[in-house]
């Protein structure tokens, strides 16, 4: 695990296109191990795009810039290799996998990541023990482990399922895309506890959100505002509070004329 303070994620002038549309113009940001950076922005500002581009989603084309994780060129890697290198993306809308049991899915995933770290794979029994423990702590009934991935899960349940995977995989960098949406008060608490526990152990977080309550609860080290395809403003938690008071940059501009 990377030590606190090591430079982990470096993004320089990242430009991303979705089809014909240029969504990100030039995004630059650095994140150290154990740091939590909140990315805020209006709807359509490209927050999710940033997450997808880092993870390597086929629909998003990187047309400029660089990104590296722990010194390794992220953009040159296939999505699964980025994951094995320690990148985790919590999806805004996690898809379902009909017929594929949660525990089989997660165990396969965990073993793929463990193999990349030259660690021993986990067998079905050990995995179940670990998973039950974590599931309990985030208020996800153990029965969910036996159900097909996300099939029939509510929005909040899917997010808890993402949280479960986050905790199991212990990535170097976790990009959480609107992880709080659909979550109740207990769910929010579980998110915050998980993030705090993991950041203390060196996991860096890119928290994508447009909710002040979420950002305040997490208490990030930095807040960055995404606007016009770039990082328009950066600051502390105060910036998040200001945004809540006066709106996002674009909204403010259009109001001021």
């Amino acid at each position, binding site marked *: 695990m990377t030590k606190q303070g090591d430079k982990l994620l470096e993004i320089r002038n990242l430009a991303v296109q979705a089809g014909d549309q240029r969504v990100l113009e030039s995004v630059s940001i650095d994140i150290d191990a154990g740091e939590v950076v909140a990315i805020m922005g209006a709807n359509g500002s490209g927050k999710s795009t940033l997450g997808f581009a880092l993870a390597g989603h086929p*629909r998003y084309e990187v047309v400029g810039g660089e990104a590296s994780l722990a010194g390794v060129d992220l953009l040159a890697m*296939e*999505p*699964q290799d980025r994951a094995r290198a320690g990148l985790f993306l919590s999806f805004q809308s996690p898809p379902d*996998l009909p*017929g*594929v049991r949660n525990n089989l899915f997660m165990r396969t*995933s965990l073993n793929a990541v463990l193999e990349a770290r030259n660690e021993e794979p986990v067998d079905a029994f050990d995995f179940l023990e670990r998973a039950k423990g974590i599931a309990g702590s985030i208020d996800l009934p153990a029965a969910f482990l036996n159900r097909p991935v996300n099939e029939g899960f509510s929005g909040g349940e899917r997010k808890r399922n993402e949280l479960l995977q986050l905790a199991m995989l212990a990535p170097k960098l976790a990009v959480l895309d609107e992880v709080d949406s659909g979550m109740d008060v207990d769910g929010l608490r579980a998110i915050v506890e998980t993030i705090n526990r993991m950041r203390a152990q060196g996991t860096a977080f890119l928290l994508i959100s447009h909710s002040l309550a979420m950002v305040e609860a997490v208490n990030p080290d930095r807040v960055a505002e995404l606007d016009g395809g770039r990082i328009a403003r950066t600051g502390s938690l105060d910036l998040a509070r200001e945004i809540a008071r006066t709106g996002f940059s674009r909204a403010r501009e259009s109001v001021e004329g």
Partner: protein
Amino acid sequence: MSAAHDDPTIAQTLARPYPHGFVTDIDSETLPPGLDESTIREISQRKREPEFLLKRRLAALEHWMTMPHPDWAKLRIDPIDFQALSYYSVPKSLADGPKDLSEVDPKLLETYEKLNIPLHERARLAGVAVDAVFDSVSVGTTFREQLAAAGVIFCSFSHAVENHPELIERYLGTVVPLGDNFYAALNSAVFSDGSFVYIPEGVRCPMELSSYFRINARNTGQFERTLIIAEPGSEVSYLEGCTAPQRDENQLHAAVVELIAHDDAFIKYSTVQNWYPGDEEGRGGIYNFVTKRGLCAGARSRISWTQVETGSAITWKYPSVVLRGDDSNGEFHSIAVTHHRQQADTGTKMIHLGKRTTSRIVSKGISAGHSQQNYRGLVRIAPTAQGAHNNTQCDSLLIGGECGAATYPYIDTARTDALVEHEATTTRISEDRLFYCQQRGMDPEEATGLIVGGFCQAVLEELPMEFALEARALLSVSLEGAVG
């Protein structure tokens, strides 16, 4: 060979037609190609069959000769020259096979590895003559003792003809009559060997029967004939085939399987088929044209067909159940995978005759490459079938943009009180689902395997345990190269 043709004595002998007493001065292992009455007599004589069986064979041949080759299925089949095939060969001696694993094709061993086939099985599958000592301490012996104690008969068809001819005479052809269809007629005339199972009244067969453990399991030949009889109150689970790829110099396989379940009996027949599918262009693969039918003869009897079909160049089969007994039940659970240039026209027929009969069909078809897969199902409710109920779930998964899947469901009901439910879906592996798996560290092939397994889950659950584990691995192996 050329030397033999040059020898004048041999040439002369070869030129003679086949009389009853075949030429014995040439010790031939294989009958030369050709099919006529004398071929049949020769086969029957070599197998030392009773008169009734010879008569049946001849009747079947006569019928077959009047039948046109069926062409209603959506299959591209090169015309088969039936006179160019040989219809009998003596089982090959294992002594001709590889001496040990080092002589076996490494690609074959690699496949066994991928399929998680147990180490001690690989030698046997590859045709290495296993030590008699090894065999005698194997499951085989304890197996036979247990079966004998229960009164279960499980032997080769030929063995049954010799030792239980009355059972053969009573039941053979009662479920698939010799004129039923073109290939059943051919099989009825020239069948080589197969399995025979008889479960006495009230007996639950103590273990799953596998064609694998049957004596002479390797030498079933191309026209296999199997007969399973379950007396009242009995139960049996039978496994046919294995996940290991099977090659054969005979391209045409036209088997017939008949199942008979009496009152309160249950027969479960599971198949895992991985015959050589041909190369990527579809050349040289095996044609699997099989007639499988179960008869729920008795009240409250049940027959269940479960299959995983991933091989063969062309698959043409409709395992069916005739629900004659009142309150009888038929089930069909199938996973069929086609890749490259494979073709499959497959499905089932559920014929409801008795009262309050039920049937369930779950068909999962996966197409990849340039393959074409068709589901063809018939649910027939006869005028006598009061209170019948069928439920059909027919799902297709298409991988890539060059393959095809078609569904031909036939519902033919003569009653207004029948409940027939049919549901069908066609899907692709979505980009988002694939990406989700990749983001969790899986490469596209592993992800596809997982998603396909999920698609097939309902059927995998029906397979006997050891088959289920192998079947998952087989699905992954069959779809190699389909994604990415």
